[in-house]
């Protein structure tokens, strides 16, 4: 990656990143990889018992997808801070009704550089980010700070 401070302007957009439609299998894989086995994310009977229609994604899976978006643009080692506020639940796509449910499960992450500044002897940017599904429902908002060469 060749993102450098002098070539970035306030107002520049981060290249958008779109996930595959999230399935229950993706949630199970994420549960295993992260160690977060809250049954809310894989067990339909638990989700229903607490009043939800179906299982929902880990918020941290959506933040992880946002991390994929960021590190497709900025090197991991440049990141100084990454902070998000979760705004909405994400239901996975239903495989028996994929065409009608994939939109709610497809996450697009966008970002916009809002500040350039120097701190701790480094040239840094702050970039606000939003993750939303294909229907426009917001999943998280937040920002990252990166030190750029």
């Amino acid at each position, binding site marked *: 990656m060749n993102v450098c401070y002098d070539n970035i302007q306030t107002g520049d957009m981060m290249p958008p990143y779109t*996930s595959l439609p999230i399935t229950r299998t993706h949630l199970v894989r994420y549960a295993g990889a*992260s160690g*977060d*086995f*809250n049954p809310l994310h894989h067990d339909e009977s638990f989700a229903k018992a607490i009043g939800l229609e179906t299982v929902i994604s880990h918020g*941290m899976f959506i933040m992880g997808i946002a991390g*994929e978006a960021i590190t497709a643009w900025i090197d991991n080692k440049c990141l100084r801070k990454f902070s998000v506020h979760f705004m909405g639940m994400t239901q996975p796509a239903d495989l028996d009704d994929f065409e009608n449910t994939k939109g709610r499960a497809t996450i697009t992450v966008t970002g916009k550089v809002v500040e350039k500044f120097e701190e701790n002897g480094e040239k840094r940017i702050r970039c606000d980010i939003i993750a939303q599904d294909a229907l426009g429902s917001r999943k998280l908002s937040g920002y990252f700070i990166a030190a750029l060469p």
Partner: protein
Amino acid sequence: MADKSKLGFEFPTGYLRVEKNKIAEFAAALSQKDSTNDVKRIYRDEDTARSEGYINIPIPPTFPTGFAFWTAGGLFGIIDKVGADVTKLLHSEEEYEYFAPICAGDMLTAKMKVADMYERGRKERKGRYFEITVLETEVFNEKNELVLRARTTFVER
């Protein structure tokens, strides 16, 4: 309901070795790949990582979410300790501050505590009252340098 006497509670120190295969597995989950052979090279190949300026394969930015689950007794071990109710739990915020790269092979020490507990809204207004708990984790490397600070905020609705 969260037990306010737990404010300031320090979890037992967690120790973990950052494992190469665990990084690849986590990267595969996030990038929705079936095989760890399909993740970005930087997450599976040491030479690629070194050529990009790391001492070894780096972690994805949200990889530290697993530290607490792997060292503090899993999700239920954590929520039992703070007296929360899993049927009411929602994750509301997550924040990472990165002070130095974390890479495969690093031996880390994680210190997690209950940093804050407070309420929002009024109890008599159903659906408008939340109890909030903030967990803060500081992660140190083998040289005892602070490499990461994480703050996890969850609410009970």
